[in-house]
């Protein structure tokens, strides 16, 4: 299956290699560099590259290319999904998955990679098991380790791997038993020029942070489970119970994990929290243009919209922008041609407005295309779909846990066409 893995940074430096079978020379990455050059943008590198003897399957995450080498037929998603799992594990261990953290923790990275694959086939990918095998670094521990010479490798043998619940480690103990659930919903929408919704859907996830002792068996139920018609679950969730009773019954992994994700595609259910009035036009003569954007609240369910940011990808001929914002700050980057207007909190009494002129490259014809606007926002204490957690019950343990649910709505891929 997966033969080797190379990590390559954005500048094209290969800074880590790992082989699970016999060693493959790094010259194989030349094919990748070639494709990378051709693609211009890192996003556009084809995920699967064919070379005479190997296949390179790569992902791009946090400015790092994870390039894996394959020799025989394997489902490409299998590899892609695994590589993302690797990146997530690094993130989980080091707080972020970046070139510098990987370089700083190269030994742990290597140990992790060794455990995650055996002969190219995934062995242990659950973060709970890995953490039993290899302890994540903390400042305190690395201090102690350097002084005493002790190690990151767990002294105990990983029992989780043997159990029927491989995602949970045994013998968990907490003094404060708590379980938190974050219902995070993102609105993906495309609005057209006139403000009508072309397409809208909600992507939700329930992130959990469960710190409970022993082997708790949890049941989470919703007030309105019928909203959810398309869901995917962490392997710990019992499908059967969901299908028959619409409750989520599971033995949770220890720590942070994503319990489920769901998708609400019925358009009438998707409330669009803000409207955008915009007018971007370029003049035929005088190489200039006008821009006028106003944002206002639409269906906010009585909550305040925060963290409002409008991003505009301008056409290449726009040299600079001379604008005036009634609220927040704007910034135009003439290199990437991106205009970012950071508004902050939306005040319904005084609608934020950005107005002014754009100057274009002189002599260039007026751009044909109009840039589209990307909106970013956040609404606390609201799940825009109306999903509500009813209750959380715990079986199997005697103590009383502290339970908490938080709702957040964000803009996902929220785009306004002009």
């Amino acid at each position, binding site marked *: 299956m997966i033969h080797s893995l190379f990590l390559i940074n954005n*500048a094209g*430096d290969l800074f*880590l290699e790992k082989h699970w079978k016999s060693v493959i*020379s*790094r*010259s194989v*990455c030349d094919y990748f560099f070639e494709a990378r050059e051709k693609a211009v*943008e890192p996003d*556009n590198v084809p*995920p*699967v590259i*064919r070379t005479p003897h190997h*296949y390179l399957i790569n992902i791009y995450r946090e400015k790092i290319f994870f390039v894996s080498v394959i020799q*025989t*037929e394997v*489902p*490409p*998603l*299998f590899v892609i999904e*695994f590589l*993302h799992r690797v990146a997530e594990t690094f993130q989980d261990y080091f707080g972020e998955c970046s070139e510098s953290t990987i*370089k*700083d923790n190269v*030994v742990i990275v290597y*140990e992790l990679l*060794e455990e995650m694959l*055996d*002969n190219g086939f995934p062995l242990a*990918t659950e973060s709970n098991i890995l953490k039993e095998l290899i302890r994540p670094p903390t400042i305190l521990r*690395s201090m102690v380790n350097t002084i005493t010479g*002790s190690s990151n*490798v767990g*002294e105990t*043998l990983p029992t989780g*791997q043997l159990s*029927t619940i491989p995602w949970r480690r045994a013998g968990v103990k907490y003094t404060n038993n708590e379980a938190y659930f974050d219902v995070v919903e993102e609105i993906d929408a*495309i609005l057209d020029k006139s403000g009508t919704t*072309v*397409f809208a859907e909600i*992507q939700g996830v329930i992130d959990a942070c469960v710190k409970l002792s022993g082997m708790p068996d949890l049941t989470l139920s919703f007030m309105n489970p019928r909203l959810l*018609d*398309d869901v995917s*679950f962490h*392997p710990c969730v*019992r*499908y*059967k119970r*969901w*299908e*028959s*009773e619409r409750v989520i019954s599971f033995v949770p992994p220890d720590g942070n994990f994503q319990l489920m*994700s769901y998708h609400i*595609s019925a358009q009438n259910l998707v409330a669009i929290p803000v409207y955008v009035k915009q007018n971007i036009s370029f003049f035929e003569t005088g190489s200039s243009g006008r821009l006028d954007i106003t944002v206002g609240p639409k269906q906010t369910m009585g909550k305040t919209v925060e963290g409002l940011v409008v991003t505009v*990808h301008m*056409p290449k001929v726009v040299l600079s922008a001379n604008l005036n914002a009634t609220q927040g700050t704007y910034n135009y980057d003439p290199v990437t041609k991106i205009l970012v207007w950071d508004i902050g909190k939306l005040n319904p009494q005084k609608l934020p407005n950005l107005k002014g002129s754009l100057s274009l490259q002189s002599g260039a014809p007026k751009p044909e*295309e*109009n840039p*589209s606007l990307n909106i970013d926002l956040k609404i606390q204490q609201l799940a825009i779909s109306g999903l509500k957690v009813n209750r959380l019950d715990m079986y199997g343990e005697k103590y009383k846990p502290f339970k908490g649910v938080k709702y957040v709505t964000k803009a996902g*891929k929220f*785009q306004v066409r002009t």
Partner: protein
Amino acid sequence: MQKLLQLPVNAVNIVKGVQGVTQGQEEALSPVLTPDSGPQNWYSAVQPEELRHLRSGGTGGGGWGRGHDDLKEMLDSNKDSLKLEAMKRIVAMIARGKNASDLFPAVVKNVACKNIEVKKLVYVYLVRYAEEQQDLALLSISTFQRGLKDPNQLIRASALRVLSSIRVTIIVPIMMLAIKEAASDMSPYVRKTAAHAIPKLHSLDPEQKDQLIEVIEKLLADKTTLVAGSVVMAFEEVCPDRIDLIHKNYRKLCNLLIDVEEWGQVVIINMLTRYARTQFLNPNINESLLEENSEKAFYASDDEEEEDKKAEPATLAKRKPYVMDPDHRLLLRNTKPLLQSRNAAVVMAVAQLYFHLAPKAEVGIIAKALVRLMRSHSEVQYVVLQNVATMSIKRRGMFEPYLKSFYIRSTDPTQIKVLKLEVLTNLANETNISTILREFQTYIKSMDKDFVAASIQAIGRCATNIGEVRDTCLNGLVQLLSNRDELVVAESVVVIKKLLQMQPEQHSDIIKHMAKLIDNIQVPMARASILWLIGEYCEHVPKIAPDVLRKMAKSFTNEEDIVKLQIINLAAKLYLTNSKQSKLLTQYVLNLAKYDQNYDIRDRARFIRQLIVPTDKSGALSKYAKKLFLALKPAPVLESPFKDRDHFQLGSLSHLLNAKAAGYQELPNWPESAPDPSVRNVEIPDWSKCSSRKDRKEKKVEKPFYSDSEGESGPTESADSGNCESDSGSGSASASGSDESGSGSESEESGEETESDEEEEDEEEEKKKRKKLDKTKAKKQAEESAERCTIHTIHQISCIINFDQFDMNKITSVFSQTLAPSGSIKMYELLHRIKGEGLAVEYCFSRQPFSPEPNMVAVQIQFTNNTNSETKNLHIEDPRLQSGMRIREFAEIDVLAAGESVTVVMGIDFCDSTQAANFQLCTHTRKFFVSIQPPVGELMTPAFLTENDFKKEQGKLMGMNEILEKLTLGEKCVNEHVIVERVTATANLSRVPCGSDKECRFAGKTVSSGCLVLVTVTTKEGGGAQLTVNCEKMLIGTMLVKDILQALSQ
């Protein structure tokens, strides 16, 4: 701190670079450093960082400058901390691709180190370099051999893992031995490691294949989820063609699937897809034949059609009612929940399984899951979209509801945009084309020019596929001709050319317009297209064409090759149609071409001159020159590049590349006739042989944690739960054990159960098993009452009947006639004699399992012809069903003579609801609208549980799933016997043995989804009673309570 620790490694590297001694070696190791630019780049990238460390003032790192001596020293020291430090540096070197092989002797010494982290890092080093230093690597082997005998299973496993990872041929026999031993280890974890080791050994020494296959065979029989994924992986790498090894394990794998870890799931599902393709019949066989025929008729030329006609009777003859193998259904049912997995690879695997194996009507469910994956990382999107593109060609309807999910955002990467366009184009049809075209219009304004070009092509494809919008599209494209971007114009020209070819007469003004464009457009492909158009339709633009040729002749030498070829083409065509005006020009162009650098062009010129210019030498062909050049050309078919990609297994690498990847296993075609299904039958193991108590215990613990109840009643599981002789287990054993009351209805059920079992077992085994079972039973029950004995004999008789007759239908009828208590089955009227003009139809729920499809309810229908004439062609038509419901019609009754009556059985999947199934009953003269509505009690089949199982299941179905009701028993309900009779008459349940005589328990499963239904009736003093119903489906529970209440209180 961390940085500080790393310093020496970096320092060493620098020194190496400076010394230049090791440099050559390094380059040999990393040939990525191409001679001209590579090395500088690499070092310049590394150096600043190294220098940073140097500047930050390293105090440690003594001894840099002495190569690896310091590391050797540290490794030789007694302190674990020093060893660890050294190993960490070495591993860091390996990670960066530096050569550390000269440290091998020093490192290998530490293989037996007590410190667990040092040990692990040594393993890492060993696996990396053992291949290069074979002799020295042998030093470490004995340590691992010792490890293989360790009492701790984890140490055994890790020893095997490292041992098998050392790629040294000389230890092959040792590895083989270790694998064989580990394969029968007590610990499933060690067995899993053994499964992992198999492909390693195979790649090291392929000659071991035969022995390894034996191990695989053994491990395939393993019942733990831990092993299943790994061993199937080994199977796929070593012997993917040995499909025969899977037979016996097929059902087990299906049932375990949901509990296997996600990576194993992917591998198993892919393997089972292939397996199913060889073992089952095409569920769409009838439809696909129809489809192919109609499609061929549409595209094929005449002679092909004739062939078709010949072939048609043959194909028609082949068509016969399709019955899905229950094992095929099992696979589909058990993979379905995995569509909800968080792992995209698992979802894709299930999706491809459904696409390749499921009946057409069921494939739709995968669309939703695939659309969900579109939210994932862009790489996942890329792969999923490729597969959706292929699927959307074959099954357009599936993705139509999700059309909008494929709309493009300006922030999508180009490769995603292009794929989404492809899908949108595939989904376009008459109804949604206007929406799609409106979308495309916005795309054309995008800043991403490659994407715009792709959009224009997409418009072209929509226009060719859907005739109604062709003119609209053409107009839109013509408008684009005035676009400022040349790329857009060029692409439009190419597409317009293709569109015009379909109906050139009406569009001479567009051709004129395009002729004008030739002055401005520089893109060669577009110029060539315009020239071709003018040449082809020069008769529509007689005035312009020669003028264009004049211009082109002028610029001929500066044109690209494809344009030159088209100029020659244009010249030739004009020469033939309008030789007066263009003779000289043509000569000129041909002369220019004669001396062109490109030999294709010279060849073409020579050829054309011979053909069109009449000389004395010119052959017979020149007479036909006009016909040759100006023949009517068929319009191009704009096809999706994804057409016919589905001959590759979807989701595979080969599908993505549209080329066979190494090691790709061809997806076999469906067999013409199904191979023997009995090969999948499993012997129920004789547990008395179980050697040690320990083994048995372990097996019990390994019982899948989350397997649903369905899984547990599967063949392997029944073997599992039957392991203790004390509990009467499941399956056939319990059938005879549960006939306690001995009422008529009960014995009928026991018969039923054995019958359904028989289906799955082969005869020989069956006889043996039964004898054994009966013997033990006989012993046990020797002292029991006479009544029971008689039932026992009935049971035996039923077995004998079964052995003698193979025809299932016959057996069914035998049972229904001999064993079904006529009183308890209620007949319902489907069609009254008067309304049916002499034809009377009654039906009843026979309570037999419907053998072709186990999740259908069998409905027995009795037709009586009360007229004086024959009734012909009795059959069902036009079923109108609630969504999800299905009907399996009975075979048409050709003739029903006057006064005769006939009984047939049909199957209806009510989806566990009491909604009526409506359909038309047709005779050769009349149609009658009829409907069958099932009482809730008929939607279930008996389930055989022990008292303990019953209590356990009941415990799981508390709360909302439990319905309690108090009642007063009717006057006649005086004893247990009557209660049992009443309840079983109301609902198709089986009695569960119970210690207390105050309680009667019944269990059943819903037919369609297999949810458990548990009923308890507790009698109290004075005619009172309490009824408890536990069922996952609350609706069913409530209705059942109502029915039973009524039955009991009468």
